[in-house]
């Protein structure tokens, strides 16, 4: 139990819209261990992105607490680098290299020369060395996401937070990016907390999957994914069906009386 890197204990998250107080998650618990590829999976409205924002330090829980290495999270910080879904997460006024260097410099982690070397090392890992001096607007969506991943990894954070990073990509690119992410993980074994609404993606990416039910988001189940070498096999198919049933069993029951 002691090796838990990230601990989420009884976290209830609420936010206000103009007219409502919305409870996004209710008393969610989970633990992420070092080198986990931990996936938060659920339909839209289950509060998984809100939960990730809370881990990122952008909002405080109304109940419960989130700790990273035993320290309570109370603000955003470079020890938890975020990769967003949106393509506009890169700073348009900086080249690829400068974008990857910027957090290293802004947080005072490395001096300029070391930051540049580190940045190039990770840009190389995502196969974008040729584009190091390009501005983001000249890159494709998939390339932008790769830069964002390189930027997050170059900081070598305690945990990498990814908020549906491949959701806005076309199916072929998404597939490729998932493979690349796993290869990167083989390289450095970083810890990642990954949010998705795709069951297949959760099984491919994750080694541990937290299922959440919507309105408000609550933990439905926490499962091990299938081993990587069995991805695409029978076991993965069976798990996909099992997760699907777990997630949508209620929905069918709820809708049944209307028929």
């Amino acid at each position, binding site marked *: 139990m002691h090796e838990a890197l990230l601990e989420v204990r009884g976290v209830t998250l609420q936010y206000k819209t103009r007219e409502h107080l919305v409870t996004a998650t209710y008393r969610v618990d989970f633990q992420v261990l070092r080198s986990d590829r931990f996936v938060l999976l659920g339909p839209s409205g289950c509060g998984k992105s809100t939960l990730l924002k809370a881990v990122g330090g*952008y909002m405080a829980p109304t109940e419960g607490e989130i700790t990273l290495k035993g320290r309570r999270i109370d603000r*955003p910080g*470079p020890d938890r680098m975020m990769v967003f879904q949106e393509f506009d997460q890169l700073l*348009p006024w900086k080249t690829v290299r400068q974008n990857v260097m910027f957090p290293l410099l802004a947080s005072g982690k490395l001096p300029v020369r070391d930051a540049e070397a580190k940045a190039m090392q990770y840009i190389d890992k995502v196969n974008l060395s040729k584009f190091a001096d390009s501005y*983001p607007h000249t890159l494709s969506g998939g390339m932008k996401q790769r830069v964002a991943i390189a930027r997050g990894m170059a900081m070598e954070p305690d945990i990498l937070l990814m908020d549906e990073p491949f959701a806005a990509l076309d199916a072929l690119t998404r597939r490729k990016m998932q493979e690349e992410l796993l290869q990167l993980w083989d390289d450095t074994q970083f810890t990642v907390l990954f949010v998705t609404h795709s069951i297949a993606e959760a099984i491919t990416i994750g080694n541990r999957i937290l299922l959440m039910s919507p309105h408000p988001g609550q933990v439905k189940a926490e499962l091990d994914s299938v081993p990587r070498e069995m991805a695409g096999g029978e076991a993965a198919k069976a798990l996909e069906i099992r997760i699907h049933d777990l997630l949508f069993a209620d929905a069918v029951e709820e809708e049944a009386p209307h028929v």
Partner: protein
Amino acid sequence: MSERPERLHLPNEASAFGVVEKPLSAWERLYNRGALRKTGLLILLAVIWEVYARLLNNPLLFPTFVETVKAFAEGIATGGLLGKAWFSIRILLVGYSAGIACAALLTVFAISSRIGTDFLETLTSMFNPLPAIALLPLALIWFGLGPGSLVFVLIHSVLWAVALNTHSGFLSVSNTLRMVGRNYGLSGPSYVGRILIPAAFPSILTGLKIGWAFAWRTLIAAELVFGVSSGTGGLGWFIYENKNQLEIPSVFAGLFSVILIGLFVENVIFRNIELRTVRRWGMQS
């Protein structure tokens, strides 16, 4: 139901096609250059001006283009046109920078608190429609004849346009970029300087351009009013003085310099800033 066979083709080699990529003709390439098209238009306008003025044949009302250019050259050589232009530009730069500094203060106040936003919005909606020239009589009473009054009306003409654009630029910075900045642990001035200002730069630049145009117009107009009693003056004074002496070609030459300086700032200075920043970054096409 007929069964359809599979189709497999090998793509043709590039050499099999007539045109894959071919350079445009010289004329097409010339026509594609904006500067060249605009120069062509300017020459056309000058020719129309010359022809019309010659037909009218009334140098007192409408001198020809050639006469104007002559007066312009003479003005530079003997009439101190350059000195007068410099006098105008110096005051303009003082007023412009002071206006931008005030706008920066006001905008920082506006983004740091809700009451600051209300303050900026209220002041802007009150003073933005107020022409700077309308403040000139008041400025004359407060600061007397001289640069003080000019700088005062210039600040008024720059401040609101720049503050309004900068503030709306800050507001439109995407939420993702804000979150990225805070993710890096940036806050306070470094967050404003390293995330908000570059992200809002297209709007800020628009504000600076509008502010510049307002300031330039205000200055010339103010100098025309001033001209009557102020000993040394700028371009406005040059125009006013020559009108009094019925030196109409010189009046045109004065206007001509106002236009030239305006064109230079817009098409050389601001254009280059744009090319090096927002266009290179793909924030404006």
